[in-house]
Every structure is written in structure tokens, then in C-alpha cells.
């Protein structure tokens, strides 16, 4: 365990640690573009210059290992001058199009310029012309002029996705990133290249030109796209959610996430949601009402039903807390053991692509199984089918999927469940199959994973707690609230379950704190 001194502070690091890693550990800021903790060392941006005592030349921190007693400094004038010039070399051919660049506000070049630069350009000659708006594939667009050739994206496709689509072509200041002949940047992780691009060279087709980043707030949560449970950051404002980016978690996803997971923000937004509860008796017209009122009305039906004629269907898309609340309600209040687990895409359930993507497209299968096991529930779907066919099951409460795209059998199952006389369907998103139902139906909107606190248990049994980001549909209920209302109880206001709020702070104070914090979202500590 070598000890070194960084800017006067003593730091102890593991054997084989590079200076830049040691500086990340000690919390010292250091300029860098090409180095990324999840990729190999390229050593080409030449910005992470440090002065090492006894060495006349400044050295790059990313490829120099810490040795015992090393004295490192990156605040001296010599280093600052080296970084300033390194930055100047990056900027001479970089277009000055920040006002129309999508990266503006979270751009590595802008950040470093504000820290080390702030000088007038000395380049009087015309800048290099390169290709603009290069279509790299279905997800990513390249602007070669903005590219600083840090080679992070190239290394990503070589080392992480192992698909090798990208390369650097030509030489000198004519160098450009591009796809190898005959291939496109088309892999399941392609959008990570956009995340790691420190400038606006690679932009996501999905996100580009939709929002300026300084109008977005962010919140950390857990992706509900599959059972891996990648840690993610969702970006939103009052117009809804706009994008999802990964957050580093060594135990789960490392630095990356899949492209599929980046679509999870879409079904959260208003246009895909049930905004109000809807009820319908037979083929009569739909009747809109507040969710709470609909749940109360459903309670009347449930109250009258016998335990044998009552069933609960759960998808593994809700939090452990919600499962516990609704299962406990059914087992204790309604005395039924008929709780069924709606398993989607059974065939690919156990598949895994070796990096992050899992076939189980539910974030909380383990959590649901745990709750079912706790209450000793072992009912199978075949029993439900049989009960519905024989007419023994008359009333079904369904907690439908949040992410309907992960449920290819959705319409089919709706048809199957519609055999029940009364159908109480709790779900966040709208769907045409639900609108076509003609029995006694209560459609009650629920909250999505970004609108509530809770816990997901991933494929490996890791419990991951997350907090609410914001509210999109204020009418919607969590399953916990729905369970209370269905059991005929009243909701305490504010709800009892606010486990993450400090007791001495009111919710609006917490919101204010969060807003203050968000003013610094653009100051990206780890580029």
C-alpha cells in the first residue's frame, strides 16, 4: 500500500493505482478527457498533467503509477500552463457552436475552459473542416468537427460492448471517428458512447434538440427495465421525463446501461398514462372519476365478494413495500390465498447477454417471490385459468405492468382475465385492450417507479432502495394506497409511508433543498 502526497495531502492507495485514480480518491480535481475509469488507458488527451517531485517534465497522471513517497502536485503554475496549452490545442479546431450544441451545459470542454482557460484564441487560421451530422447508426449521430478524438467511444466498442464498430480514420488533424466499412454503430449498448463523449460529438437521436440540459433536473433511481436493476439518473422537468443515464455502481452495472433501459422514461410521461380512474358497467359508457373514489367504489364490490371468488394478479413491476401491503390486505382482510404471479416472456426469462441485459424484464421478481413466500402463497396461473373458466373466480384485482412493452402477452392476458365478472385493474399506463373491456371494470391509475419511494430486489438478491423523483400524474395511487382504499380504510394525509423524509422537515422544504442541489447538476464532478 504505497503512500503518496497529493497537493500536500497524504493519500494511501492500493498497489498499481495510477495517479489519476489516487486523485479521484483524494478528491482533487484534475482535468482529463480520454481517461475513463471503465476503459483502458489511452493517454492521448495530454490534459491530466501533474508535476512529480524529482522529475523535470510534467507527466500524465493516467499512465503513471503511484510509488511510495511520491510527491504529486497539479496546482503549480507549470501544470496550469501545461493544461492551458493542452486545452488550447483541443480548442483550435473545435467549432464555436456552443449555442446550438446539444452538449452545452454539460460539456467537458466548456467546463475545463472555465476552469483553466478564459483567454482569447490565438488561432487566426481557418479551422479544419470535417464531416457534420454523420449517421453512425439507429441511435447515435456524430459531428466530427466537435470531436476531440479522445477515443473513449472507440475503446468502449472494443472493450465493453466488444462489437468493434468504431475506429479512428485518417491521420493528424484530419483524423475522424467513424464506423468501419459496412457496419453501423448498432449494438445494445450504443448510447453509452454518447454518455462518455466529453463533448458534443456524439449525440443521441432520441434526446438531441429536445431540451437544453440546464432546464433539466435529475434524480437517481433504479432502472425498472429488467432484473439487473441498473442504477440510473432520470432527467426531468415540468414537461416530463427526457432521458436516462447510468450511475456508477460497482456491484450492479459498473458505468454502463443498455439502450433498452434508456427508453423507460417514455411510459412514465403523461401521454402514455391513465390520468384518471375510469369505470364502466358492462358496455355502458366510461365514467371518469378520481382514483380514490374509484378505489372506494371497488371496495364495495370486494366487500361483497366471498373469499373463494376473489383473486389478485400481480406483475413483478412494483416495489417490495407495495407487494407487501397489497398481499397482506388480501390475505388478512379478504382471507384469500388466490394470489397469482403474472410471468411475462417465460421463454427468455433466464437469458443473459453477458454484460447487463437480462431476459427477465421485471425489476422486482425476487421481491415479489419473497413476499409470496412470506405469506405462503403458492397458487399457479393454471389454477387461475381454471377458476376463470369454471366461473369460480368472479372478481379479479390486477396490478398491471408499468412497462407494457415488456409484456408481449398483454392483450391476450387481458382477454383471459376479462372472463371475470368484476375486474379491478390497477395500472400506470393506458392500453387499447383495457379500453375495449366490456365487463364491470375499474381502471385505477397507479404511480410509476419515479413517482414513489421503494425497494427493488434484483436478480442477485440485492436490495436497492430508491426515492421519488417527481410526480407526473397526481391522481395516481401507489399500490400501498390502493390496498388501503380497497380494504375500505382511509388514507392518512400525508401518507404514513414517508420513510426517507427527515422528521423535522416539511416536504416543501425538502423540495427546496433538492432544487438548490440541482443548480449544480451541470458541474459534473466525474466527467
Amino acid at each position, binding site marked *: 500500500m504505497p503512500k503518496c502526497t497529493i497537493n500536500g495531502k497524504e493519500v494511501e492507495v492500493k498497489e498499481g493505482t495510477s495517479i489519476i485514480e489516487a486523485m479521484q480518491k483524494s478528491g482533487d480535481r484534475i482535468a482529463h478527457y480520454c481517461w475513463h475509469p471503465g476503459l483502458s*488507458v*489511452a*493517454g*492521448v*488527451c*495530454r*490534459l491530466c*498533467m501533474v508535476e512529480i517531485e524529482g522529475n523535470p*517534465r*510534467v507527466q500524465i497522471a493516467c*499512465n503513471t503509477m503511484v510509488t511510495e513517497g511520491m510527491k504529486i502536485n497539479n496546482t503549480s503554475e507549470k501544470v496550469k500552463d*501545461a493544461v492551458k*496549452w*493542452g486545452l*488550447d*490545442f*483541443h480548442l*483550435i*479546431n473545435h467549432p464555436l457552436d456552443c449555442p446550438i450544441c446539444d452538449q452545452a451545459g454539460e460539456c467537458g470542454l466548456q467546463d475545463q475552459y472555465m476552469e483553466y482557460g478564459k483567454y482569447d484564441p*490565438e*488561432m*487566426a*487560421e*481557418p479551422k*479544419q473542416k470535417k464531416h457534420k451530422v454523420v449517421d453512425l447508426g439507429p441511435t447515435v449521430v456524430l459531428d466530427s468537427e466537435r470531436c*476531440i*478524438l479522445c*477515443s473513449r467511444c472507440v475503446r468502449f466498442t472494443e472493450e465493453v460492448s466488444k462489437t468493434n464498430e468504431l*475506429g*479512428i480514420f*485518417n*491521420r*493528424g*488533424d*484530419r*483524423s475522424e471517428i467513424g464506423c468501419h466499412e459496412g457496419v453501423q454503430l448498432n449494438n445494445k449498448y450504443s448510447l453509452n458512447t454518447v454518455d462518455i463523449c466529453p463533448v458534443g460529438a456524439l449525440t443521441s437521436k432520441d434526446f438531441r434538440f429536445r431540451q437544453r440540459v440546464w432546464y433539466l433536473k435529475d434524480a437517481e433511481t433504479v432502472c425498472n427495465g429488467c432484473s439487473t436493476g441498473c442504477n440510473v439518473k432520470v432527467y426531468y422537468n415540468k414537461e416530463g421525463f427526457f432521458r436516462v443515464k447510468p450511475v456508477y455502481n460497482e456491484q450492479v452495472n459498473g458505468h454502463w446501461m443498455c439502450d433498452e433501459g434508456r427508453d423507460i422514461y417514455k411510459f412514465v410521461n403523461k401521454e402514455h398514462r391513465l390520468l384518471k380512474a375510469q369505470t364502466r358497467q358492462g358496455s355502458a359508457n366510461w365514467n371518469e372519476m378520481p382514483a380514490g373514489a374509484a378505489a372506494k367504489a371497488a371496495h364495495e364490490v370486494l366487500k361483497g365478494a366471498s373469499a373463494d371468488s376473489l383473486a389478485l394478479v400481480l406483475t413483478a413491476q412494483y416495489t417490495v413495500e407495495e407487494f407487501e401491503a397489497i398481499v397482506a390486505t388480501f390475505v388478512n382482510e379478504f382471507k384469500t390465498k388466490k394470489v397469482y404471479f403474472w410471468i411475462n416472456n417465460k421463454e427468455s426469462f433466464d437469458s443473459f447477454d453477458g454484460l447487463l441485459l437480462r431476459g427477465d424484464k421485471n425489476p422486482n421478481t425476487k421481491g415479489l417471490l419473497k413476499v409470496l413466500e412470506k405469506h405462503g402463497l403458492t397458487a399457479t396461473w393454471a389454477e387461475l385459468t381454471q377458476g376463470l373458466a369454471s366461473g369460480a373466480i368472479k372478481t379479479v384485482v390486477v396490478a398491471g405492468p408499468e412497462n407494457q412493452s415488456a409484456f408481449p402477452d398483454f392483450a391476450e392476458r387481458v382477454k383471459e382475465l376479462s372472463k371475470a365478472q368484476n375486474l379491478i385493474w390497477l395500472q400506470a399506463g393506458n392500453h387499447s385492450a383495457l379500453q375495449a373491456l366490456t365487463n364491470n371494470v375499474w381502471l385505477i391509475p397507479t404511480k410509476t417507479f419515479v413517482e414513489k419511494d421503494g425497494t427493488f430486489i434484483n436478480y442477485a438478491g440485492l436490495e436497492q432502495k430508491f426515492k421519488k423523483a417527481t410526480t407526473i400524474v397526481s391522481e395516481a395511487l401507489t399500490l400501498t394506497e390502493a390496498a388501503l382504499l380497497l380494504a375500505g380504510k382511509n388514507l392518512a394525509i400525508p401518507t404514513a409511508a414517508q420513510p426517507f423524509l427527515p422528521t423535522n422537515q416539511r416536504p416543501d422544504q425538502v423540495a427546496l433543498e433538492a432544487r438548490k442541489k440541482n443548480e449544480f447538476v451541470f458541474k459534473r464532478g466525474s466527467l
Partner: protein
Amino acid sequence: MAEVKMLTEFYHLPEYQTLEGYKAKGGYQTLPKALKMQPQQIIDEVKTSGLRGRGGAGFPTGMKWGFLPKNNEPRYLLCNADEGEPGTFKDRMMMERAPHQLIEGMIISAFAIGSKKGYIYVRGEYVFPIDCLRKAIQEAYSAGLLGKNILGSGFDFDLDVYRGAGAYICGEETGMISSLEGLKGQPKLKPPFPAVQGYLRKPTIVNNVETLAAVTYIIRDGAAAYRQHGTEKSTGTKLFSLSGNVVKPGNYEVPLGYPLMDLLMKEGGGMKPGRKLKAVIPGGSSAPVLTADEVAKANLDYESLAGLGTMLGSGAVIVMDDSQCMVDMLGVLTHFYAHESCGQCTPCREGTGWLNKILHSILEGRGRLQDIDLLIKVADNMKGKTICALSDAAALPVLSFVTKFRDEFEFYVREGRSKVKGTTYAEMHH
């Protein structure tokens, strides 16, 4: 002192190219002697001889060999015959006139470092030298000098020629290794150094053609005899490629420490009639230029030239007389480096292009006076900031040209025409 012909003794004989001709003049007689020695003995002998890399950096060869890890991992011996440094043409002659000399040197060196496989990386344009080498390797294989169990010693060594695709940067040892591996010719980050992890991630030694050829003579005559030539720290003889405005340009083998002025005036036959010496680039285009006054003080050895702020480099002596416009000359150099920068490291990728743009602005009459200082600033900040030395190689000529011939640059900016030739860039070149 005068020319000492050690390597080039029989270069004038056409039959020296062939195995028989080479053998007739004492070729392949050192090899059996070397194969009977202990490998470590050979390495020690080379160390004692003081032989330094002839490719440009002048790194002690024996010390380089000593960096190899002491284990039985497979290792490679690569011969660097890329010879990309502008002004250098010595390796070409060596491969054309005496391919067997290189092969013998390589077998001995491979035996010393324990390598069973070697490659000669030749630049793509050298079609004829490649033919010569291939023919010579064939001959050597048929004579049992290459392949399994060389001369019954139990030592195996295979040798191949690899033709480069023509990039200056592939003359840099790690760039060459990348190219040999089939990758884009780009230098690799050091550490790890090639001696530890090189070609195919195995220990690798890269030596210049002339270095490897010289090993034979060190073993033949012994280190002490080799040290007779040259100076205390720069031992032996070296080939110099003399080019430019002299009467007799060409390759000359002289002992190190030979006065530069003698090379120009005796071997080179002096300046062309009516012309005066203006400047000399002593070690290939990457070396800082020397003025006529400095030339008079310079000796052709590593220390003397380093003392004058320049370097021996690959031994390419480029002579310029008073008819040369230094601004124009530097324009040629900056264009070369901007064209050849591999584009990996930012200071070099952007810096070489920037220098070239500034220089051509000046040449085309758009220059500003502050551009002259800007050239110095940019070049200064490119030095020592990159993975390989190309950035330095591009910066050093700029620094030396601009500081030593500043008046010419200032005149060009003010008048928009050359001080020496009196004409504009367009008139000079069309």
C-alpha cells in the same frame, strides 16, 4: 582522420550482394564464433563496445538488450528499416549492397537475446531493397544459416521481411510494432516498454539496420578494437547521409567524433562553386539546425552535437547554402510533420497542423508579426508532451529555424516575400 571503411568496406563490389560474394570477403565467419560464445558474453561484449543505436535516439544497444526479462518467454528481434527520417538513405544502401551483413548481424543478435523469430520492417517505398533482402534470406535458408539448428549449433532462428505501408510514424519503435501487428501504425503508451511487452505483447528488441550490422564487427574484432574508432562516449563508425548543396552528396562512413566541417569539405567536396555555407541540419529533419558558425565547432558525435543543442539523430546531414530561403525550407518541414502526425495525442495532432497553417500564412503573405512568437510558443508547448517523439521532432526545427534565422522570418512577414530569393511563395514554387 578520414573515412574509415568498416561496414562499407566492400560495398563497391556488386557480388557482395550475394552469399558467395559476401562469404568471399569474410562474411559469415563471425557467426560460428558467436554461436560458440555464451549469449551473455555477446551482450557484455556489445555493452563494452559502447555501441549506440544508429536509428536516431542513440540509446546504448547493450543496455537495451539488458532490459529483457530473464525468463524463457518467447521474444522477438525486430530490425527497423523504415528509414523515414527525411534526409536519411543509409539503410537503403546497406540493404541493397550488403543484405547478408544485416542478416549475419541479426542472427548473432538474436542468439544473444535468445530470440527465435525476427522481422525486418522495411518501408513500403523500398521495393528494390526488399527484393535484395528476400533473395538474401532465401540464400541464407538454403545454406543452413537460417532456420532450424543453424550451423549445427542447436540454435533456431527464422527471419522474415515485412513491408510497411509508408508512414513516417512507423519508424518509431512502438508504432512499428503496432504496424507489424496489423494495426494502425500508432505509437503505444510507455511503460510498458517493448523490451518488456512489445510485439504481440512479448518482450521485443527493436534495432536499426546499421546497429545490427555493426554487432558482427564488434564480435569479429572484439569490443576493444571497436572502441578504437570514435570518441570515448561515441564509439565506432557511423554512416552519414550527406545531402543538399554540396558537390558530392552521398553516404560516407566516418568514425564518430569526425568534424562536421571536414565531412562537408573533404567527403562532400565542399560547397557548390560560388556558394557559401548557411546552415546544416546534422541528424535528419527532426534535429535543430546549425548555423555556419556552429558547424565549424561541431563534431559528429552524440555529445558534441548535444552540446550545440542539436542531435546526431539518424546521421542525415542536410546542407543548405546561401541560396536557400529558411522560411520556405521550414514550410516544407512543417508540412511534412502535419502530414505524418498519427493524430493520437492532441498537442501533436493539432500542433503540427497549427504550425503548418501559421507558416503557410506567412509564406502566402498573410502573416502577422506576432505569428513568429506564436510559432515559438506553440512549438515550445508541443515539446515533451506526447506519447512519442514526433511532437518534439516537429517542434525542434521550428524553434531552431525561427530563433536562428529570425530576420528572414520578420522580413517575410513585413514584405510578403523571401529575403534570400526576393520572390513570393507563388513565384518560388511555380
